């Protein structure tokens, strides 16, 4: 494993931690700034995790609500995003463990326009794709989501934090409250499953 990242050694150097300390002091603007900075990321993390945009927004709201509630007791012991994603992961895990959790991702045909107006996954060589490459890109996206839904929740969380949110294994380990080597294993297994299931696109 790589040596411990320097920024984690001193959480106080994290600008988000400084904002959170201001929130602790009652600064509403600081809270709004944190929300505007990270709200979209948490919605996306939750969306890829639970597969439903509306639930993802509700989860993200609840995550920030928890942060708001916890602000008076906040102590900077890690990067703010580590804490944020720990709360978000727990919220998503709770969601997918609910017995009534049945949020199949919408098929491509039923996606509203605003969801379809997004950049599509690019193939390495679009000319090599027979037919409509945009459609193929959407099919690939749907397949990735399908595989994500099948992954064990911990693997899903580790893969999303690592690949989508660009967090280091150490940060993911802190968010998942596990070890770095466990994260390495989780990310490897998730990637191996993804690679196997996406063979037709490779």
């Amino acid at each position, binding site marked *: 494993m790589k040596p411990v990242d320097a920024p984690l050694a001193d959480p106080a150097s994290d600008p988000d931690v400084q904002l959170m300390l201001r929130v602790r002091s009652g600064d509403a603007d600081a809270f709004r700034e944190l929300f505007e900075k990270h709200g979209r990321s948490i919605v996306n993390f939750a969306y890829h995790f639970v597969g439903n945009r509306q639930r993802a927004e509700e989860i993200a709201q609840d995550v920030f609500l928890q942060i708001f509630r916890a602000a008076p007791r906040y102590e900077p012991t890690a990067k703010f995003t580590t804490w944020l994603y720990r709360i978000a992961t727990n919220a998503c895990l709770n969601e997918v463990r609910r017995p009534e959790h049945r949020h199949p991702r919408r098929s491509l045909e039923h996606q509203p326009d605003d969801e379809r107006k997004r950049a599509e*996954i690019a193939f390495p060589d679009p000319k090599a794709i027979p037919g409509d490459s945009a459609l193929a890109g959407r099919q690939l996206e749907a397949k*990735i989501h399908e595989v994500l839904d099948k992954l064990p929740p911990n693997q899903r969380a580790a893969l999303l934090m690592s690949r989508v949110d660009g967090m280091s294994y150490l940060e993911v380990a802190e968010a998942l409250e596990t070890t770095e080597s466990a994260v390495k294993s989780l*990310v490897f297994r998730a990637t191996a499953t993804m690679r196997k299931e996406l063979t037709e696109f490779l």
Partner: protein
Amino acid sequence: MSTLDCAAIGEELVAFLDDELDDDTRRPIASHVATCLVCRREVERLTLVRRWVGDLPAVEPSAAFAAGLWDKIAAETTPATPAPNVRVLRPWRWAPPALAAAAVVALAFSTLLRTTESPTQAPPAVAPERVAAPAPAVRKPDAPVVAARPAPKDEPTGEEAPQVAAADALRPEDLRPEDLPPELLEQPELFLRLPVVRRLETLEHIDAVHNSHDDGDGGAG
């Protein structure tokens, strides 16, 4: 490197691509990948998969997203309306009229019972001016409810009609202590034991408050 060596580094390739290996582990893997066509191809595939997952299109939060959060926070910071509590309903405000109404019902009931038990006795002490005529309803032991009708002159009516008219004619504000049966004045709690009274929802609240005090629950919640 041999095929076995390729299998051995297989589990390290993802961490290798994620740049999560220390130098001592990373260097031999890099050397192997540079010379092994199989591993190089696998690295290319894993690189694609990692990129596809990392490039998953982001959803744009709806306009209601931020507003919903501020609403939730506002709900948290606004003092909540206290839950209804029988202790703060101030029962003394509604207890007197309820008790008076119950007394009227009980009085009519008691009067009827007396009439039924001793039909030859004189009418109870209900002021004549408070008795309406004709009687709206007649209650007999063998006929629970009989429609009111003017009594024929040839029928013995002196004991019956005036006594059974009290329930509808009396009003709570007209009630005087001397109108009440003496046993009720001596033991007011008998009121609460009358089935007709216990059916009154308001008095059941009184009962609940009364019981909660009896249980020794002194905390306010």
